[in-house]
């Protein structure tokens, strides 16, 4: 990166500190889903750019500043929309699965708190 990285000093600009490319594991996962869909021929790069571009544009129109942190939020929103609108998965299935995962998380945590066995 540029040695004198003054862009990083602008208000609300995320710093590029050459840290991990994905700051959260789910960023990498969400990224990999798109790569997988493209490689398997279930998604074109053009379609993806359209969906992602639209999600970012909406966020900007709402006045939501898009920092690097927020970026994968919009990525995920675009991905869910794409999957549902192209009948790769039903919105309902995604919600149900989400609830299931949340419940499991909750139970597991409760289990650990109880001393777990």
């Amino acid at each position, binding site marked *: 990166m*540029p040695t*004198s990285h003054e*862009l990083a000093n602008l208000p609300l600009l995320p710093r590029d500190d050459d840290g991990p490319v994905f700051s959260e594991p*789910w960023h990498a996962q969400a990224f990999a889903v798109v790569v997988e869909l493209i490689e398997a021929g279930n998604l074109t*790069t053009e379609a*993806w750019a359209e969906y992602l571009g639209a999600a970012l544009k909406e966020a900007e129109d709402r006045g939501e500043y898009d920092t690097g942190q927020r970026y994968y939020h919009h990525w995920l929103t675009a991905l869910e929309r794409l999957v549902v609108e192209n009948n790769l998965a039903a919105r309902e299935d995604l919600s149900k699965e989400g609830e299931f*995962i949340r419940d499991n998380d909750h139970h597991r945590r409760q289990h650990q708190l109880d001393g777990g066995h």
Partner: protein
Amino acid sequence: MADDKVSRRDFITKSSIAASTAVTATGSAGVHAAEEHVQSDYAVRTKALVSVLTKKNLINPATMDAVVDYYENKVGPHIGARVVARSWRDPDYRQRLLADARAVAREDNLTGAQGTDLVAVENTPKVHNLVVCTLCSCYPWPLLGLPPSWYKDTAYRAQAVIDPRGVLRKFGLELGDDVEVRVWDSTAEIRYLVIPERPAGTEGMSEAELASLVTRDSMIGAEKLESRG
């Protein structure tokens, strides 16, 4: 020639686009805490997506891990750096690269999964090229790995087009008035690789030595490589 391949539509000048950004102040501790909570919700949504798509055999978690590993470890700016270093030493290769970078990348097996076009643009003492994706974050992944966070930032995506000299100045790069700045808008169809100027004092260096001097940002046009010695 590259000029034939690239339509004027892709060549953006300062005046052609007036992108706007709304910068609002956030960042209190409260907002930060809320953000963390929301993030875990995003993680759940991602897991749900992976799970449902896996059940439908649309994706494979095993190869997904390979994808993550690949982009985190195996693909990176060092690939593009090799291409640049070779272009400095081999005039024929440079000509072929400038004429049809996609074909050269394909020959060298550097295209990855992307079936997109690739265009190489060269920086000279009189021309400086800068790459941006105004729509999202289109980027030559197979050559440069994943884009840096600033590349994805709203401010960069807007300002690089409106005021490229100002952006470059903030990167610590002051260009003379006699240098023409060209901004290229990367798209799903066409990605760009900037061939930075070979730094002075590198005569006689091997390709590997030269490649070690080439930075990721210099191949986006956000940096000029410094003279050696």
